[in-house]
């Protein structure tokens, strides 16, 4: 029985068009000249131009998009890896030993519901003493806090998916805890680790408020750097340049997401379902 896909293709196309409408519009706007933006709001470009991208990709002593991209890459990298490192042992302990199930686990998970910006002042003071202000490491640390709840949830689900008997077999094979964790549990969690990393990286990359508060010049991440372009030459918002910078800023996580979509679709969500 061959499923009829024609109608499904149509539904797919409509869904993609509707859900991505802002993205498509922005992409189109990025190729319009400033004059055309105010004259022609349609999705059709009369005279396509790379002017906006040229503006965005040209560095000046103030605007250096390559710096922002690099800062975001490093900070988001730290923000994605660190939560995995600290959450993994605890995730195992939660599942297998019930450690922290009563307090620690809900505590961390609930950080997700909290606007962390209320910690802005104390963190700022602490960072300024520790010399972490305006550093990629400092920003990465906070992004790690932002990612911690999801990382812990995903890893707990991943560990719970591992058949207990496999770990018992390793015990019987003489593996003590470190070998068990690193040679058996960790490799078995690999799909979840990858998804956790991808999601963490994307979330960290997309974060704005802490990026704004904790950096000034050296460690400015892409999202904050993008906002620098919104008003570059004295006038109001230059929609074309703004659109181009948004496109550039969204590309790295998008590329990551598109390349690794199988990881995202498969494992993560299977884990999340177990809840």
């Amino acid at each position, binding site marked *: 029985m061959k499923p009829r896909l024609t109608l499904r293709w149509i539904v797919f196309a409509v869904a993609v068009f509707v859900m991505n409408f802002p993205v498509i519009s922005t992409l189109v706007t990025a190729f319009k000249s400033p004059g055309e933006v*105010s*004259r022609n709001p349609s999705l059709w470009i009369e005279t396509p131009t790379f002017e906006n991208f040229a503006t965005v990709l040209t*560095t000046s*002593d*103030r605007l*250096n998009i*390559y*710096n922002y991209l690099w800062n975001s890459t490093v900070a988001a990298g730290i923000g994605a890896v660190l939560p995995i490192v600290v959450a993994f042992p605890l995730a195992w302990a939660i599942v297998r030993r019930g450690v922290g199930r009563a307090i620690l686990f809900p505590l961390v998970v609930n950080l997700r519901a909290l606007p962390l910006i209320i910690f*802005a*002042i104390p963190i*700022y*003071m602490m960072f*300024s003493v520790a010399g972490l*202000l*305006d550093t990629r490491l400092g920003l990465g640390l906070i992004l790690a806090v932002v990612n911690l709840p999801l990382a812990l949830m995903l890893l707990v689900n991943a560990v719970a998916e591992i058949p207990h008997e496999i770990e018992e077999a390793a015990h019987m094979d003489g593996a003590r805890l470190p070998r068990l964790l690193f040679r058996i549990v960790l490799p078995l969690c690999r799909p979840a680790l990858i998804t956790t990393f991808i999601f963490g990286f994307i979330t960290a990359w997309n974060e704005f*408020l802490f990026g*704004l*508060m904790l950096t*000034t*010049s050296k460690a*400015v991440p892409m999202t*904050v750097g993008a*906002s*620098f372009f*919104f*008003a*570059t*030459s*004295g*006038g*109001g*918002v230059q*929609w074309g340049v703004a659109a181009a910078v948004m496109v550039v800023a969204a590309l790295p996580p998008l590329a990551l997401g598109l390349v690794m979509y199988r990881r995202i679709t498969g494992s993560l969500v299977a884990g999340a379902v177990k809840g």
Partner: protein
Amino acid sequence: MKIRHNLRAGVAALALVAAGSVQAEVTVLGWPGGPEEAALRAVTEIYNAKADVAEENKVELLFTSRDGFFDKLQVDLAAGSTAFDLNLIATYSIGRYAPYMEPVTLSDQAGTVFGDTVLKTMQFDGKQYGVPTDLSLHFLYYRTDLIDALLADDAAKAKYSEIAQQHLGKAMEPKAPADWTWEDFVANALYFSQSVNPDSPTRYGTVIQAKNLLFNMMVFHSWPRSYGGNWMDDAGNITVDSEAFRTALSQAKLLFDLGATPPDSTSYEYAEANAAYASGQVAAMVQWNAAAGELTAAQAATGTTAPPAGPEGKFTHIHGLGLGLNKAAENKDGAIAFLQWLSTEEAALAYAKAGGAPGLAADTAAKLAADRPDLVQVGDYASNFGFVMNGGTSEKALSVYEAQAKEFTGFWAGTQDLDTALKNATAAMSELLK
């Protein structure tokens, strides 16, 4: 990959050269993105090139994001940041930032270059907290082509009069914008709105940026002020619940209700309002003087004049930007030296030539008449129509604007009535200004 690599390498090399040539030690956090940035860069270059400025006192500029700039500055200052020695201050935020700033003594020329009115925009509790660099006020922008056509067409005049009669209760004649009262502004806005006048060449007569945002209140304030409105009287009683505010708020509300401003304009800020005007679908608007270039570029037939008059005359809200000294600054001497130089005539003229909008005394401005005629206009309006609300430089001034923005936009959006809006605003202001 390779191109990008080369680019990175090139950039790194450039950065090294730049860092090598200027061993900057005085850091300045400026207002990013506008003409203010370009002007500040220009004068900094001049200053750093001076022979008598020591290497360790050269100035380095720092510009962060416009989005959330004041929120970040608040955190920076409150936490005692040493990331900058000098930072942006504005008339309405001096009070809030004063605890983290140090008063400064300006150069001897400051009085003659700027004049007392302008220097006052940088004072709090009688102390000078900074050098005024830019003056922001509001212009009435209008489409000369449309107004001229209206004034030349008798049938249109009759229609105009009929619309005024119907909605404002009296027959009115179209006038030149320089002679407008706020009633004329409203009548004109109605005439040029297709919801009221289906033959209107524009979709909307005006656009009022009414996002729940403090800056939008500043744009609005000239209106109630020209009816005699003020925040509080000399005894400290909150007087926002007055006829003046009621009249201005109701007139604006009429424009929202009759569709004379875009229905979405309760969520418009600067960018959206300008985009609306730039599209050619708006006949006239009150907007910051900084928008002149952008609006004229989009609609060539754009005239500018002072905001409309009320019974008390014409008024424009003025708002000074300047640079002040961070209390936690690490190089205070160097920073003060730069501030003092900034307040000299040399610096002010260079700043203005580079595109900045300093509020200059008439004599100083005259020297620039050829280069910057608009500065004469700004200076003129500032000294003749400029005002600051009573309490407008107090510690909690920004919060007062916040509170008003919330209540007034709520009234315009129809989520609450006028009495409630004014009652809530009065309550909030009493709490803030006590």
